[in-house]
């Protein structure tokens, strides 16, 4: 019933497709409000019939809680709509922050992909040339002629590939987190939170769930929208990557499959292509771009997650759950 | 007769001393002086203006209470008047006592407590922690180099090869662990050093005057008391705790002698495996001793300082913000 959500991607222009959220939200809201008032009425009725002062007092308190839940339910979607749709409009112009964030992260992946493949292509030939060795047992010789000047390039490309590896993993994790917050924020956490707010025993957990829902659904994407505004477009990165890929082009590897017939072209590639300024400049530019990306996909999101958790920690007591100690402990953990 | 004569001289002495509590117009300010400029008009001027306005207000209310025959207002005014008097007395005693306390503790510590605290912390950070960190780093690099040294008997295809000192890599990991620890220690010491200079800049020049002014207004009395207590605690007690730390550390340095490494090691076992191991372990042992001296000064003593300062602030706030109703 409640739990089989429909998971979507952010197609519509407005951040919160109010209509979509409401038809998921509306049945839950009704159930929550009705049961809350039912319990209060029942308790009050018992309190009056057996003139139990304590019970009546409790019922009165619970009535206000139920009223609070009702108001929360009624205005939540309205609040979401105004805050998100209009709010974002004013803040970042008429674009859906989620769409912007999705686009930004996909853009980063679009750039990382050609970088990795071109670095691999350049490194493949450089490392092959580095491994060429001449041996002569008579003279006790085992000498690799090209290793001296190809190994720095190979190490450099390996380091760059490692950064791309880590960046790719983190970007895809952010992408999955963003998808979780977009879908789970309104359609899972907030309905469950409101449902739990009804019963006094689970009010704490309910308050926390609503806080998590609002925090993750609003705070996290806005961060990416600002980050996205500051980023260059990925096509420039792709040009640099292809430039690196072609910097060692024109070397026929198959000749070396069987015999070292064309040793001359191998030394030519080693001396001119591997050391060519084109390879050095494009790989240096790519490394500069990567360190910039590293900041945007690792430190900013970590910062924003901390901001989101402090946001949750501040408003959750408001909604009924006090998680100051636990939250802080877990924030350190994260 | 003699007693009254002595009393008056001492009284004059105190008032004279009180004058030098207010800082001179231009820096360098002597230790323990309350800032004369507070925004533009100087806090003494502002607190007197505040007092006059409140007295005016009270008189107006008193007049109204007489017109509308509101008895409870009268009691309230009487109480407020009394409170203002208490505030004035408190401020005057504060001004006088402050310079006395400062002089006592400065003589006790031998110099301006802030100066001693800064020197103590800087010597800890730059002399002890950072050169220990560089030693650790050098040892770690050396161990890793030695660990990579490989002996090969016969050609690779038909012989045996091994790294005799591969165990040194683990010792290098121990050095890296200590290096990470020293980074944490120096960070905590630097934070305290910066905190001290912030306190020196703001506690008496900003926080104390604000506290005094708040103390005068009826509604901010408790907040004023707390602010004064806070500034006293931070400016006087906190640096003195560092002076205490320095004295404690100096007193125990001579008393502790740790046994040398050989007394409990089986040297023959280690030398057999790799000749460089004993050298690395002696280096590790000396750095562990230095670290053991640093840890209390970077973790235990700062916590003790905070506990003492907080206790003082809590007690002083309670004393300063009570309205002495019972004495009345």
């Amino acid at each position: 019933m409640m739990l089989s959500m429909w998971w979507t991607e952010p197609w519509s222009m407005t951040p919160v497709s109010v209509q979509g959220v409401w038809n998921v939200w509306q049945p839950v809201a009704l159930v929550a409000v009705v049961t809350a008032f039912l319990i209060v009425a029942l308790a009050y009725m018992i309190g009056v019939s057996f003139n139990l002062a304590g019970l009546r007092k409790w019922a009165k308190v619970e009535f206000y809680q139920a009223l609070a839940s009702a108001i929360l339910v009624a205005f939540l979607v309205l609040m979401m709509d105004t805050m998100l749709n209009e709010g974002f409009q004013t803040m970042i112009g008429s674009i859906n922050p989620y769409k912007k964030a999705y686009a930004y992260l996909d853009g980063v992946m679009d750039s990382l992909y050609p970088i990795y493949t071109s670095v691999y292509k350049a490194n493949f030939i450089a490392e092959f040339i580095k491994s060429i060795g001449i041996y002569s047992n008579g003279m006790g010789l085992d000498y690799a002629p090209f290793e001296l000047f190809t190994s720095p390039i190979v190490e450099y490309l390996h380091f760059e590939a490692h950064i791309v590896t880590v960046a790719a993993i983190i970007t895809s994790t952010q992408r999955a987190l963003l998808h979780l917050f977009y879908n789970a924020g309104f359609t899972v956490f907030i309905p469950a939170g409101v449902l739990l707010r009804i019963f006094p025993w689970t009010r704490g957990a309910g308050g926390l769930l609503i806080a998590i829902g609002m925090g993750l659904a609003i705070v996290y994407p806005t961060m990416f929208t600002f980050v996205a505004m500051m980023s260059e477009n990925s096509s420039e990165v792709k040009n640099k990557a292809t430039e690196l890929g072609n910097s060692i082009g024109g070397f026929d590897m198959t000749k070396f499959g069987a015999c070292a017939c064309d040793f001359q072209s191998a030394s030519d590639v080693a001396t001119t292509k591997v050391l060519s300024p084109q390879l050095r400049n494009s790989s240096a530019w790519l490394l500069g771009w990567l360190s910039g990306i590293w900041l945007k996909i690792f430190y900013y999101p970590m910062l924003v997650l901390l901001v989101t958790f402090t946001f949750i920690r501040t408003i959750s007591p408001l909604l009924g759950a006090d998680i100051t100690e636990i939250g802080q402990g877990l924030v350190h953990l994260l | 007769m003699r007693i009254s004569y002595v009393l008056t001289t001492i009284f004059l002495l105190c008032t004279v001393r009180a004058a030098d509590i207010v800082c001179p117009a231009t820096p360098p300010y002597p230790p323990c002086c309350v800032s004369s400029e507070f925004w533009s008009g100087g806090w003494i001027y502002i607190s007197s203006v505040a007092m006059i306005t409140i007295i005016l207000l009270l008189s107006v209310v008193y007049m109204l209470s007489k017109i509308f025959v509101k008895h409870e207002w009268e009691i309230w005014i009487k109480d407020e008047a009394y409170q203002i008097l208490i505030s004035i007395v408190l401020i005057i005693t504060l001004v006088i006592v402050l310079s006395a306390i400062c002089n006592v503790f400065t003589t006790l510590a031998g110099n301006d407590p802030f100066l001693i605290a800064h020197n103590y912390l800087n010597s800890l950070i730059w002399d002890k922690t950072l050169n220990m960190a560089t030693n650790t780093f050098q040892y770690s690099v050396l161990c890793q180099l030695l660990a990579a040294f490989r002996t090969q008997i016969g050609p690779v295809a038909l012989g045996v090869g091994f790294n005799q000192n591969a165990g040194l890599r683990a010792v290098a990991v121990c050095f890296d662990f200590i290096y990470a620890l020293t980074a944490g220690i120096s960070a905590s010491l630097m934070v305290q050093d910066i905190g001290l200079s912030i306190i020196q800049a703001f506690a008496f020049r900003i926080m104390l005057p604000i506290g005094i002014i708040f103390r005068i207004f009826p509604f901010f009395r408790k907040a004023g008391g707390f602010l004064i207590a806070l500034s006293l605690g931070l400016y006087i007690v906190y640096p003195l705790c560092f002076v205490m730390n320095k004295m404690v550390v100096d007193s125990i340095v001579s008393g502790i002698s740790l046994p040398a490494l050989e007394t409990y090691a089986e040297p023959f076992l280690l030398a057999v495996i790799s000749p460089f191991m004993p050298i690395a372990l002696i280096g590790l042992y000396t750095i562990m001793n230095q670290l053991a001296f640093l840890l209390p000064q970077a973790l235990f003593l700062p916590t003790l300082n905070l506990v003492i300062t907080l206790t003082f602030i809590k007690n002083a706030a309670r004393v300063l913000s009570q309205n002495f109703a019972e004495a009345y």
Partner: protein
Amino acid sequence: MNILRKALLCMVLLALLLSGCVVNSDGTMAVSPACSSGTVSSGFQTMWESWQGIAFLAGSTVFIISILAYTLGYALMHRKVIMWAKEQMQEACLSMVIVLFVIGLVSFLCSLDLRTLGMEVSCICTDPAEVYPACTTGTSCNFVNVGYGMLMEMYKNIMGGFLTVTAIQSLLSALSTTTYGYAPGGVGFVVSPLGALGDIATSLRDGMIVLMTSAILTLTQMILLKMTESLFVILFPIGIILRSFGASRGFGGGLIAIALGLFLFYPLMVVLFYGSVLGSIQADYSSMTTSLQGQGLDASNSNWFGGLLWPVAGFIGKAMVGAIFIPILMFMVLIAFIKGLSTALGEEVDASNLTRLI
């Protein structure tokens, strides 16, 4: 007139305090630990003489003022003032009484010989050069020295264990890097047969880090123990003096609680807790070394796990609990003691919000 008179009296009090403040000539307080060679250290004695004067002075001034206030209150029939004065008088007498007992208390603590309490403990020779059993000039077995001796024993055991684990680890990692080539005529294999030992060596490396941390923490506690003696010498007198004045009674009480807690209760806890843990760690270390000798370091022996790694893991586990977990428990009880004592003596030393700070 009444208030003016009170203000004047306050002035008198301050003046007296200033003039009475006799500090030794060069102005700085030379601090020396409370106990040395089994009895009260001479440094503490001389320092306490000068502080004793001040404490008495402070107590007597408060006493005089409260008498004055008492007569005034009696004259003006102001019950609250009388009560306040009576209370101040009690406090002044109490602080003066405490001052009297300080030297007696410290000398008792310094000269208390734990062996009389039925504990077989290892003490310290009065002459620091000698090692305990062979003491010529006599032994001192008070709490601090016994605690220091026990921590030293534990430190030696842990360092011994650390060096043994380092030896095993370096042998295993050396063996794991051996490569053995057998390709006569260019055809064959080059293998490193003992690669698995490298993985065991990495797990022993974590054990080394744990043992090193335990050794460092034990050393730190030895230094803390020495520090508490000097801390007591500074905090206790200041606490007494501040306690006699009405305004700073809470703060003074807190300082006294901290001083007593650190100087008295902390060494007691060290002796009790470490007296017990040390025995089991020592037994475990000797069993480890004997099993190593028996097992020998050749991997061929079938019982390599039972003979070699089982005792090593046991030793690391015990050292970890003994040197890291139990001190946390000890400090927990120490903070409870200081908190309890300070609520009784004056201002409650609130260390709880600090723990949240760190």
